[in-house]
């Protein structure tokens, strides 16, 4: 469907990811230096020109698998390490947050306001590092340039593409449940009250005209809700009041990132365009040059999600599927390449396997990717 989803997907999912990481870094009293470094590294990578340029090329939306791989790589562009279980949960949280925003988006065009809200907060997170702020500003300008001219119909197509991507995901998030924006069954609340979106008229009126265009009669009907007039329109400029609250940081308002998960989702069947996606993935990863990688000789572990379940599991000694202990201390230089290459090798191995069932692959796609990874 829409070929323009990726930049907005990454800005919004990346933004949600950063909100959560920021909250967790504060909650675990990570040093300011380390926190700043993590934020700068991730934001710097996400908003780098090469990364954004790749995303801006017209293309179909990735599969969940590929999207999660790239987001994992993004998170690991910093000195912070997340184990697979943490990454899985982080992904689910960010997806559900974005799904909520897209679902409740007042007008399709407001997807931009939501994206700009994310960019605003991201800018705040890195405000002390002017190099990164400049990157954010540059990217923001590019997004304004590319998306401002889209029609409402095109935005709705973009929104519909995203909604299909999020379909059937009903992971329950305790912050959402607490604020009653999500029901116990995982579905989001959709009130029939409140201000109507900008540009829409409150329902309830029927007007009849004569052949000269003069109104001859008007009558009212019960609209079945309690709607009010629209509020002012948000700003689509580089800086400004976005007005709608979707896309703002929910986690700073005292909400904790403590989630109950009920997994009820599938990531769909293997994407037959996996080869194309892997190529793009290689380009994206290739754009993360070696010199951007942190030189720190020590990393730090972050306790991303402490749930009762996890504490129990630690006590029991049962693991959540991870081969090592839940949160092991990891030496950056050694593990980074091995981990990334291993992960990608696993993924490319999977794709190569599935491809063979359908067509004759060149057989060395995985090798090329691994070779590239070794160069990083």
């Amino acid at each position, binding site marked *: 469907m829409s070929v323009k989803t990726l930049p907005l997907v990454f800005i919004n999912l990346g933004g949600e990811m950063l909100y959560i990481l920021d909250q967790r870094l504060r909650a675990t009293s990570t040093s300011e230096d380390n926190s700043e470094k993590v934020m700068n590294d991730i934001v710097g990578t996400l908003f780098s020109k090469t990364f954004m340029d790749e995303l801006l090329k017209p293309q179909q939306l990735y599969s969940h698998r590929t999207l999660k791989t790239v987001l994992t790589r993004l998170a690991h562009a910093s000195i912070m390490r997340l184990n697979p279980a943490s990454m899985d949960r982080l992904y689910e949280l960010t997806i559900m947050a974005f799904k909520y925003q897209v679902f409740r988006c007042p007008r399709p065009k407001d997807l931009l306001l939501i994206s700009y809200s994310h960019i605003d907060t991201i800018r705040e997170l890195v405000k002390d590092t002017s190099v990164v702020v400049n990157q954010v500003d540059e990217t923001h300008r590019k997004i304004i340039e590319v998306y401002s001219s889209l029609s409402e119909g095109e935005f*709705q197509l973009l929104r519909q593409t995203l909604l299909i991507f999020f379909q059937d995901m009903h992971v329950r998030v305790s912050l959402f449940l607490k604020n009653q924006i999500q029901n116990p069954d995982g579905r989001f609340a959709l009130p029939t009250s409140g201000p109507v979106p900008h540009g829409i008229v409150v329902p309830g009126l029927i007007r009849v005209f004569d052949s000269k*265009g003069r109104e001859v009669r008007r009558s009212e009907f019960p609209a079945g809700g309690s709607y009010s007039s629209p509020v002012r329109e948000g700003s689509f400029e580089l800086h400004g009041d976005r007005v709608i609250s979707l896309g703002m940081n929910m986690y700073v308002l005292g909400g904790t990132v403590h989630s109950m998960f009920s997994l009820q989702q599938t990531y769909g069947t293997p994407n037959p365009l996996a080869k194309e996606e892997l190529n793009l993935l290689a380009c994206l990863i290739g754009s993360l040059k070696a010199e951007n990688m942190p030189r720190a000789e020590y990393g730090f572990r972050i306790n991303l999600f402490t749930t009762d379940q996890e504490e129990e599991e630690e006590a029991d000694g049962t693991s959540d599927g991870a081969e090592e202990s839940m949160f092991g201390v990891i030496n950056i230089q050694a593990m980074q390449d091995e981990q990334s290459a291993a992960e990608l090798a696993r993924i490319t191995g999977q794709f190569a396997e599935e491809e063979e069932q359908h067509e004759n692959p060149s057989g060395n796609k995985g090798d090329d990717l691994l070779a590239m990874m070794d160069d990083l």
Partner: protein
Amino acid sequence: MYHKEKSIQIKNSASALYNNLSVLRIAPRRLTYFTVVHANVVNMVSASWDGLNYSHRQLQSKEPNVATSTSLIMQVAFCVLPSRDLLVVTSQKGIQIYESDGSIMVYWHALDTSDAPTAQAVFARGISAVWDNYICVGVSSGAILVFDVPSKGSNITLSEVLEEHKEPITDIASECSGSQECIADLVSADDGGNLCVWKSGKEFQLLNKIPGFDMSCSSVKLWKGIVVAGYGTGQIHLFEAVTGILHAEVNAHARWIYSLDIAPFSGLLLSAAEDSLVRVWHLTVTPETNSVEVAHLHNECVTDTQICGAKFCDGDGYAFAVTGYDLSEIIRYTQL
């Protein structure tokens, strides 16, 4: 006026697409078919009128003989012609036409992606049968493909390409198939809200163009020479098809309208939107005074659901069915 009946469960949830429900009533067999799109799959349910038998079928959108080429489906609709009923599936790759029970694919038309600028999405959307033997399908370029359908067999041919719209087609509707004679028998709508009114034939004639107001017209119907159009502003406009005169404007919904339907024998109008509401209206057309009346009759709220399809199940509007995004059921309502 209406009460809720037992829902029909479907295999997957409905996708957020315009007009995402199609209904075919087969009186001789006392059955009704329903189709709902889920990403790259069509869920088809055949429901017996006594409510005892339901059978399910799934169709995938793909080119014949190519294993991996599934693509996202934009719309599915039943096309009722005097000689036969067919099921049309439109997707990013092309157009498939099946026998109405989904058993056999009788025709495949691949979309030409070569001359579309790569920055734009390519897809087919907007389906309608018209007159005795035509099926019209819209495309993202704004073109409308007219297929000539023989009374049986698979010798369907592309008869004409209508190029009036410049924006992606959203919906197409017709009236007066078969016996009746109408001045205008087809209307097409696009993402800019522009409407084109046509007379079908060996060469289709453009009778009128009604300009939009930069807001998508997501669903359109034609009845007694009146175009009923639903927009992203939640409004419904009623125009006289041939002249373009605006008869009535209804501030119907608080969000984007996704589906309109008309029960032709009674003049009942159904509208459904992302605001979770379905509304039933009554249209009265008085040709002598050239006037149209719109009366509101009924509301149904599908809690916390953005509705994507709503259709009457019969020509009188005695019953209607509704689908919603992320909902794995077809909700039904019948008159008390």
